[in-house]
């Protein structure tokens, strides 16, 4: 047993960090956020050239065939850099679902162009009255292969070439420019990842597979999201420690005061604990399927609370500066809040854990694997 990164994983993470630092610096992220468009076509093609868009998908579709842990390491660095735009929606959400449920021919049609960087996509799942994991409650109808309904909080729908839509017991591909599709922005707190309402009115759709095959795929996406949250927490911690070392009051660095230092210590504890849970969840998805769902929910539950708390502590230590528009903290603070609820908040995942470990007969805490 070895619960640390391998040499090749360290290299992957390091390269991703350098890539994002060079190609997606924070002033660029801010500029995109302030202009209201989070998609940068140039950055997208550079990410595709790195192989990021196909990282965990089979080589036969142009992917890199790497593991869920590798995706999570990439997402951690993307989170640290606050990478904006459709990457998470396309790769972690849409492509993992396609890879899980579609036929070989459909994967050639939909997954291959994602891997190559030609296409962007997203997952349209939740509806009014049908939150995460409550697909059965959805009201979108399927009649003669045509979909009618409204999906909400769909990330990156504006730049998606096609959408992966969960409706009834099926999963469908819908072209963005198909008849009856309308996409309306839902402006939210998060300035770096936009979400949309997608209305479908008798829209032609291609069935990819059964919704029952989505669960593992959304768990892969959830583990990736947690890793991205860890990267964000790490960046908030780094910025805060740096500020506490340089900002002086009463003639000394404020980081010398225990009231400030202990906030930073707790941020460290919360970030590291989220990271342990995130790495394990990603690993379990590939290597311990029986534990994976529990591990993913534990990670999302903990990180959902931790990313909010770390953000609050970070702003508090920054004092008035942390509350300004000019300081970059709020960009992370906003993303953290959006990520907290995306794919289920802590309360949602606690209930999922309860179903897995309290209701399941013979449930008991897991041992060594």
């Amino acid at each position, binding site marked *: *047993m*070895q*619960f*640390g*990164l*391998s040499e090749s*994983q360290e290299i992957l993470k390091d390269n991703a960090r350098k890539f994002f630092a060079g190609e997606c610096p924070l002033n660029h992220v801010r500029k995109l956020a302030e202009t209201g468009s989070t998609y940068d076509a140039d950055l997208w093609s550079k990410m595709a050239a790195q192989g990021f868009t196909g990282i965990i998908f089979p080589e036969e579709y142009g992917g890199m065939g790497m593991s869920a*842990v590798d995706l999570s390491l990439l997402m951690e660095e993307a989170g640290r850099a606050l990478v904006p735009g459709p990457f998470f929606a396309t790769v972690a959400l849409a492509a993992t679902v396609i890879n899980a449920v579609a036929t070989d021919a459909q994967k050639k049609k939909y997954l291959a162009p994602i891997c190559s960087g030609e296409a962007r996509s997203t997952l349209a799942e939740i509806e009014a009255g049908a939150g995460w994991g409550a697909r059965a409650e959805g009201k979108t109808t399927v009649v003669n292969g045509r979909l009618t309904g409204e999906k909400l909080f769909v990330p990156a729908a504006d730049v998606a070439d096609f959408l992966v839509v969960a409706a009834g017991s099926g999963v469908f591909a819908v072209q963005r420019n198909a008849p009856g599709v309308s996409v309306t922005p839902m402006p939210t707190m998060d300035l770096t990842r936009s979400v949309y309402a997608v209305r479908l009115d008798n829209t032609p759709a291609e069935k990819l597979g059964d919704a029952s095959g989505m669960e593992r795929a959304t768990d892969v996406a959830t583990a990736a999201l947690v890793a991205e949250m860890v990267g964000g927490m790490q960046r908030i911690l780094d910025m805060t*420690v740096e500020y*506490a*070392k340089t900002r002086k009051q009463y003639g*000394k*660095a404020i*980081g*010398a*005061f*225990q009231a*400030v*230092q*202990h906030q*930073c*210590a*707790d941020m*460290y*504890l919360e970030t*590291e*604990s989220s*990271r*342990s*849970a995130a*790495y*394990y969840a990603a*690993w379990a998805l590939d*290597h*311990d399927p029986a534990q994976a769902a*529990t*591990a993913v*929910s*534990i990670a999302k*539950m*903990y990180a959902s609370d931790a990313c909010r708390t770390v953000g609050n502590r970070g702003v508090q230590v920054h004092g008035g500066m942390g509350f300004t528009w000019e300081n970059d903290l709020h960009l992370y603070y906003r993303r953290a809040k959006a990520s907290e609820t995306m794919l289920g908040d802590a*309360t949602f995942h*606690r*209930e999922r*854990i*309860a179903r897995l*470990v*309290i*209701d399941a007969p013979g*449930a*008991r*805490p*897991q*041992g*060594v*694997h």
Partner: protein
Amino acid sequence: MDLNMTAEEQQFRDELRGWLKANVPADWSAKREDPLETRFEYLRTWQRKLFDGGWAGISWPKEYGGRGASLMQQVIFWQEMALADAPPMANVLGLGLIGPTIIGFGTNAHKQRYLSKILNAEEIWCQGFSEPNAGSDLASLQTSARREGDFYVVNGQKTWTSYGWIADWCEVVVRTDPNVPKHKGLTVMLLDMKTPGISVRPLRQMTGESEFSEVFFQDVRVPVENVVGEVNQGWEVALGTLMHERGTFGAGLQILYRRNMERLIELSHELERDGRPAAQDPLVRQKLAQCYAEIEIMRLNQMRAFSRISATGVPGPEGSIQKIFWSELNQRVQQVAQELLGPYAQLASSSSDAVDKGAWAYGYLRSRGNTIEAGTSEIQRNIIGHFVLGLPRSY
């Protein structure tokens, strides 16, 4: 990253599992609630049995009675002990703190003399660190040692000494040079608790038990060869011991937490609330799931830390998060147990209505000490702030 067991680890696990199946005493559940002294002798016998079977000191060198296996096998050992519901071992501080300190800083003679007797529980150890006026500020301690020929003569007082009432030996930190800055005049010694001039007075704690004691030294003579590390460089040795205490000591506790969690889940199915099992109450479910998740995260944090220690050889200051995590988590879990059981949770072992013989009333009170013992949560946060994050010293 590979959390699967290697072939070697699997073989170790299977062998251990077989041994535990044949050897874990059947009467342990009955003995669990025995008074401290009787229970201790029971655990000492059990540790001896483990030693004879070759299962004490998994990661300690073979030449001193250990198994010479990896730290990860040590982790597997704890996990299997938990799964088998085996009793813990008696010589807790010898195994967890003092043995590793002797392995790290001691001479060959020390290793020959002390290690195997720690493993077979023939000699029980305590740790003489805190004093009435040196708690969190440990380096300000005043117990003195004056050189006289081939001996040091020790005078002073230690307190909060766990196992002081039964210990044969003590790892003691003393001041050998009062004329230099406080960290520079300290020395670590191994002290025979049967030496004349030592008196031990039990301290009664909130739970009513006396796990720890005050220890008084009056002209206690310690041979110079019992010094561990260099004279006046004892702070480094003491820190080594403390890093083991913070970083790796909590791993054994996970056993206890997992047992508690399993029992709480069981109880939630048995107890009624508003005419249905408590396990169906949404708030109870939220709270139990939170505890379950955090206990699992404690395990994962520890696994990551052990992997790091396996690579570096020694625990570092980041181990303080383990100490904060296990201590504060136990308090949260015990509180959830109180809420789940309602007024029954407060019943003491002497009540015939007590759930689990009063274990939850005891556990709640005992957990109150967790964030104080082995370095307060405040001190652990100072350590993270300064030594891990590089913030200025705050004290």
